[in-house]
């Protein structure tokens, strides 16, 4: 992603990275966050990036020359190896290593408080109890950001 001269390609690779991170979240049993990751980052943020890239029509030629070819070759090599390893694993008897996780419940109780749990309900519970104030502030921050963006992108009359 970093070494690709084309911004659109960079963005595409970025999406791949984000989805892969979401996969890691799944491995960590944080299903809600994984979904959020895909929806917010891969969905909203990256689409925004792509739009802007298209809108601005940035020149393709960038400056970064050093060792790009070798690095991307290395990356491709690792990628191919990984895919081959995965395919080999899924068709063989050998099991993939699994994360060493303790067991967690899937339903948050009021008593259990802030213990980790896989269900989305636990988010709601904790957001509206312990983290009530930050939650409100975050909401307000979003509002501010929205207003700010509107103000910034408004064309000034004198400029016209």
């Amino acid at each position, binding site marked *: 992603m970093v070494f690709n001269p084309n911004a659109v390609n960079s*963005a595409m690779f*970025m999406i791949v990275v984000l989805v892969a991170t979401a996969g890691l979240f799944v491995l*960590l049993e*944080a299903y809600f*966050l994984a979904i959020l990751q895909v929806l917010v980052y891969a969905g909203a943020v990256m689409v925004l990036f792509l739009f*802007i890239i298209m809108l601005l029509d940035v020149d393709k030629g960038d400056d970064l020359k050093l060792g790009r070819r070798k690095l991307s070759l290395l990356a491709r090599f690792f990628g191919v190896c990984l895919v081959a390893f995965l395919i080999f694993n899924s068709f063989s008897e050998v099991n993939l290593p699994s994360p060493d996780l303790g067991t967690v419940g899937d339903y948050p109780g009021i008593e259990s408080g802030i213990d*980790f749990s896989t269900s989305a309900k636990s988010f709601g519970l904790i957001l509206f109890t312990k983290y009530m104030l930050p939650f409100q502030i*975050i909401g307000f921050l*979003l509002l501010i950001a929205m207003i700010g963006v509107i103000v910034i992108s408004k064309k000034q009359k004198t400029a016209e």
Partner: protein
Amino acid sequence: MTIGINEFIIASSLLFLIGFMGVLLRRNTLIIYMSLELMLNAVNLALVAFSRFNQAMDGAIFVFFIMTVAAAEVAVGLAIIVMLFRKKQTVSVDELNQLKG
């Protein structure tokens, strides 16, 4: 063989380094921006891992907040970039050097 917290930390650090190098090496503002997002993501990953291995919810909640802030940040940042582009017809940081002393 099992995967412990170390592996997740290493993955997170790698992602962070990639993002860091991106910011350091690239000249395109948009890509610098994406790299910033990547770093945020790396932090998210570390936080979720800690949270999971500590059996506590707080880290996950923080990830939630970071996501929200990142979304807001992207919106504002991109708006600024668009305005910059309108004014200067470029997004390369080489030409955005008015702060030079």
